[in-house]
């Protein structure tokens, strides 16, 4: 090893160029299927998708949908029944050892080495991956610092909080500078500050050119972090697009919720009919019994709901009442998710 290579390694964490659109995909999954022994159905029934280089890819699905199986296959811990999976150019089935060199995993549960200190966890991980001694010492100190762990590098993992454990596991995974980092439900059990810190780090990793595949139940997290989101259920891929495009696909869910203080002459049905006749209104729905107190109306609209506040207010006052409250209902990723996977508990 010569000095130049060392510098390149440490610099790489902060200033790696982002992969351009023309380069090969960071993750390539083709017809991937898994049936566990003694199971009558496929846990994964032929899933295909690609993750671009330098992308943050959100992987969503209800419990038991096939997320963990997919991630398990991609990280070489589960053997697929059929199909092909390639991570950073390495076929995970044909060359699992090669794949483990280029991928990093941050698991959901604490699997830190409890016999080692925080710093030793990082150092030994790097030595398993063949990072030269001088380099791993430098990298460990840099990462401990970046992840706010530098004040207690010699503490044992058992003495730290859930958020700190999480940071240690990410720092550990970065010790061998993986091309693709898999984060399995990283924000589960984190307090809001720890979650924000995690989001910042993911953004920084992306800046540095690392591809990040993230599984989560947190729709906010998926929408905030991900360039694209895949929604999977019952072992099949239901949707794959940018969060914005997925939400746009739910345009029929745009609503304006109004509270109306009726006057003595206001007729509920007539008002609903008037509003329903406004251009761009698809449907109106009375949320409460109009005979008691304030009326609440949900108006399903096409286009921006904000543009309907004024015409609706006019219609209400023309009917002798007054508009007391209006809420704009934009669909979000959660609506998309529930729309695709249903409300049933599992």
């Amino acid at each position, binding site marked *: 090893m010569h000095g130049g290579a060392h510098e390149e390694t440490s610099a790489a964490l902060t200033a790696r160029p982002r992969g351009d659109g023309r380069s090969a995909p960071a993750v390539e999954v083709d017809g991937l299927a898994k049936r566990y022994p003694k199971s009558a159905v496929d846990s994964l029934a032929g899933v295909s998708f690609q993750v671009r280089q330098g992308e943050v890819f959100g992987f969503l699905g209800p419990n038991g949908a096939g997320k963990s199986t997919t991630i398990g296959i991609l990280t070489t811990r589960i053997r697929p029944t059929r199909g092909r999976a390639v991570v950073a*150019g390495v076929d995970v089935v044909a060359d699992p050892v090669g794949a483990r060199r280029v991928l990093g995993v941050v698991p959901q549960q604490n699997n830190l080495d*409890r016999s080692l200190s925080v710093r030793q966890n990082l150092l030994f991980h790097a030595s398993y991956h063949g990072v030269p001694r001088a380099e791993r010492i430098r990298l460990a100190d840099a990462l401990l610092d970046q992840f706010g762990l530098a004040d207690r590098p010699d503490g044992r993992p058992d003495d730290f909080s859930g958020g700190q454990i999480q940071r240690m596991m990410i720092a550990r995974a970065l010790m061998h500078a993986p091309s693709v980092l898999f984060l399995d439900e990283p924000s589960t059990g984190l307090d809001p500050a720890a979650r924000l810190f995690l989001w910042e780090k993911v953004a920084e990793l992306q800046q540095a050119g690392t*591809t990040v595949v993230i599984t989560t139940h947190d729709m906010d997290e998926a929408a905030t972090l991900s360039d694209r989101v895949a929604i999977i259920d019952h072992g099949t891929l239901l949707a794959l697009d940018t969060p914005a495009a997925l939400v746009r696909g739910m345009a029929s869910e745009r609503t304006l919720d109004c509270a109306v203080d009726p006057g003595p002459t206001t007729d509920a049905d007539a008002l609903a009919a008037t509003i329903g006749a406004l251009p761009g209104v698809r449907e109106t729905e009375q949320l409460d019994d109009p005979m008691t107190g304030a009326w609440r109306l949900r108006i399903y609209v096409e286009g921006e709901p904000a543009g309907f506040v004024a015409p609706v207010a006019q219609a209400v006052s023309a009917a002798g009442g007054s508009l007391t409250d209006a809420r704009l209902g934009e669909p979000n990723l959660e609506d998309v998710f529930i729309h695709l996977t249903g409300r049933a508990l599992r």
Partner: protein
Amino acid sequence: MTVADADPRPADPPGDTRPAALRELPRWGPWRTGLAILRRDLFVTGREFPIFLAQVILQPLFLLFVFGKVLTELGYARPGYQLVLFPGLVALAAVLTGLQSTALPLVIEFSYSNEIEDRLLAPLPIGAVAVEKVVFAAMRAFVAAAVMFPIGIWILGSIPWSSSTGVAVFVMIVLGSLLGSAMGLILGTYVPPNRINVTFALVLTPLIFTGCSQYPWPSLEHLRWFQVVSALNPMTYVSEGLRGLMVPHVPHIQTWVCFVVGVTYLIVLMVIGMIGFNRRALG
């Protein structure tokens, strides 16, 4: 992997964004990774070496003292019994320490701590992680067996030893250490964590008392069924092998038989253990 051109992958995999320094790593090879994992285990044990020694010495120490010294001096055991006992206790220390050094950590690492995951995700074949576990446990077992020699001299005054068989004794102790570790690999990977306590009780006691560590196997000819049972215990061949090498005048199973059966057992146990390990490590 010893030569760079044995690596079938292209020099620059298309999706590999890692810096050049790390992309060159295939040359380091899984061997380096395996050694790094072994170094971690040695580091952790080395830090607690006195505790480790106390852990492995205490039981054989008392066995040696009570059976070899107390019973002989009180006249309940014939003079010279300690010569029969000593090689057996060396075998016992090797096999038991090996077994415990793989079984218990594996049960914990696969279920409660998940610690093994970081090693299963290291760039070496999954089976090599199992081999490292066995090699490391065998190193512990070897140390436990080796410290029996100074303890024997201390308690018994002298131990049977001939420099002409020294190398063979060394090899036999290594074989015993590996046999115990391989048995531990099987226990640690096939037994569910909630059953490990009861399994230990059900396995360890028969293992200790049918392994011919306290008596020579040929002397059991009047207790035929017990002789047959003892012949099934891999430890018997370690006890008898060491006895044949250290106290050749005591009746014993022929040394070459002990080596052949011991190595055969080792291969069979390792194959079963590796299958169990792969099942636990891979979905």
